[in-house]
């Protein structure tokens, strides 16, 4: 980044859907992918006379997230109405939090090439989601269609300080945030399903003769993947630099206000939108249908007790306790808490953290990826895989055979011992038996023996191959090698 002629300043506004069963203010299901308009009721349809009642679990989850983000929890918080007209918002106001959010002043540590960097969190507040608009393709092309299933789903909005200074940092922030929220089962953070959404406030600081000039802030929306966030910020910063060089407009200049841009992922460009004149006049006021929330220290303590070990602390501990590299720790923790728990059980069970790590990050992760499933749905418990690792080591089962046993255990079931027996992988360890096999193989490959004697060392491989075939690979390679050498010298 050092070679850019400007410094990028990024603040992220992240919305995550909370993992509740029901909506924020009514009992409708929040499940993704239900048939259109099948999860609605008078409350979330905004029918006349219907009233909201707050979902306690949503608030608890939000407090949990805020505590994990080191935020201060307000002792008094309330609900406000944000008034604006949009067809996916049936009441034409969104129930949100304005001047007294339930939490503020937190931080999240991220890893950068320069080391750990602390990113401030301005605030986190709760609000209700809007519905979905589908734009009719083709046909008359004149209508938009409204699906209100998502209306009222609890959203946590997390606003960072403008302290991210590179697109890569923005991505790292989002990854760390996702890891944290997934680990705590606050949100599943699926960008594809919209359970994590991100807007980026971007501007640049350009050094010049009299100091540093800041360009007007642009809020970039429609970022549908972490990669899109990175690309969009990179593009937008560059665009602002070009713009600044041509018009010289600075933040705070008369008539300059915050603009909104959409990210076009296909074309790879940000498109600055025409400013909606009244966009800023949301006429916030306290929602009279809802009552305030008072949070005491006992409540906070109760939620804090549920936090457990947060990813940052976990990483440090895993590295030192199991002598893992930073990279391996990252791979494991990124998969979430159940995966880490599996690793720890496996490491304990087989008594070899390095082996446990290898199996986990290679075979097991591969299986999970192939199956698009989670470690919680993995068919073999950690102690079963631990047994496989122990058996393989004890019997000298080679890596390929061990993998075969693993594959069988995963697809067909059975313990490591059972499968080894079933597949006929019981090792040949009797030296006399093995020597007989070697001798037979030498007799059958007389030419190879002659070639070896004439100095063609490679010729021994043919004999070795025959031995391995005979033993179905169940002889230890080193032992075969040893006996073969002895017999060849003797021949």
């Amino acid at each position, binding site marked *: 980044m050092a070679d850019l002629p400007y410094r990028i300043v990024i603040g992220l506004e992240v919305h995550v859907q909370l993992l*509740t*069963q*029901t909506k924020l203010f*009514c*009992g*409708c*299901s929040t499940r993704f992918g239900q*048939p*259109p*308009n*099948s*999860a*609605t*009721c*008078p409350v979330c*349809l905004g029918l006349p006379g219907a009233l909201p*009642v*707050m*979902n*306690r*679990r*949503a*608030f608890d989850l939000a407090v949990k997230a805020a505590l994990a983000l080191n935020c201060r929890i307000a002792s008094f918080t*309330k609900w406000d109405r944000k008034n604006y*007209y*949009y*067809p996916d918002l049936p009441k034409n106001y969104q129930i949100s939090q304005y001047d007294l959010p339930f939490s503020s002043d937190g931080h999240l540590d991220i890893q950068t090439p320069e080391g750990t960097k602390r990113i401030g969190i301005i605030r986190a507040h709760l609000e209700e989601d809007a519905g979905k*608009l*589908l*734009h*009719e393709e083709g046909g008359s*092309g*004149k*209508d*938009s*269609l*409204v*699906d*209100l299933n998502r209306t009222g789903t609890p959203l946590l909005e997390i606003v960072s300080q403008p302290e991210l200074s590179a697109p890569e940092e923005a991505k790292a922030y989002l990854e760390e945030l996702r890891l944290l929220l997934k680990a705590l089962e606050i949100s599943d953070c699926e960008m594809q399903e919209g359970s994590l959404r991100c807007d980026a406030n971007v501007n640049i600081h350009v050094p010049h003769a009299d100091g540093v000039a800041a360009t007007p802030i642009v809020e970039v929306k429609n970022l549908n993947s972490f990669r899109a966030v990175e690309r969009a910020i990179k593009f937008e910063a560059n665009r602002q630099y070009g713009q600044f060089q041509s018009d010289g407009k600075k933040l705070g200049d008369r008539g300059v206000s915050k603009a909104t841009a*959409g990210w076009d992922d296909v074309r790879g460009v940000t498109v600055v*939108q025409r400013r909606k004149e*009244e966009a800023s*006049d949301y*006429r916030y*006021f*306290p929602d*009279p249908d*809802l*009552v*305030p*929330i*008072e949070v005491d220290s006992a409540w906070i303590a109760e939620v804090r007790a549920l936090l457990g070990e947060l990813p940052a602390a976990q990483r440090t501990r895993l590295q030192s306790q199991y002598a893992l590299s930073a990279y391996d720790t990252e791979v494991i923790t990124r998969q979430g808490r159940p995966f880490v728990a599996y690793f720890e059980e496996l490491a304990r069970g087989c008594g070899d953290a390095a082996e446990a790590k290898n199996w986990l990050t290679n075979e097991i992760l591969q299986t999970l990826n192939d199956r698009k499933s989670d470690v919680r749905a993995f068919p073999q418990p950690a102690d079963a895989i631990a047994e496989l690792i122990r058996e393989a080591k004890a019997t000298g089962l080679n890596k390929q055979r061990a993998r075969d046993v693993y594959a069988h255990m995963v697809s067909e079931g059975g313990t490591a011992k059972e499968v080894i027996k079933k597949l006929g992988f019981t090792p040949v360890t009797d030296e006399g038996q093995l020597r007989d096999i070697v001798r037979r193989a030498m007799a059958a490959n007389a030419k190879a023996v002659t070639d070896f004697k004439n100095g063609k060392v490679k010729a021994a491989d043919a004999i070795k191959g025959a031995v391995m075939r005979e033993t179905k690979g169940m002889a230890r390679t080193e032992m075969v090698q040893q006996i073969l050498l002895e017999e060849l010298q003797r021949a």
Partner: protein
Amino acid sequence: MSLTVDDTRWVAHLARLQLADAELATMTRQLGAILDYVTQLQQARTDNVEPLAHPLPIHNVFRDDSPAPSLSVDAALANAPQRRDNFFAVPAVLD
């Protein structure tokens, strides 16, 4: 304080209310009169007075996160002025 027709037009836009020109003039006059009356609030001394949004000091009212039956799709759409398949239809929304 005096309210102009432009102010009224702006507020009508915020409120998404179509007002005919004649209505706009009457509205400006009537709103102006009411606002003049309401301005007397400024005479009340309210230093350090906490705003009262709720008449009663109720707080922490919650429900459990347990699902309740939703309406059927037909019931949800029964009052829709324009229904297309299982959606509410509106004129195209331009982003």
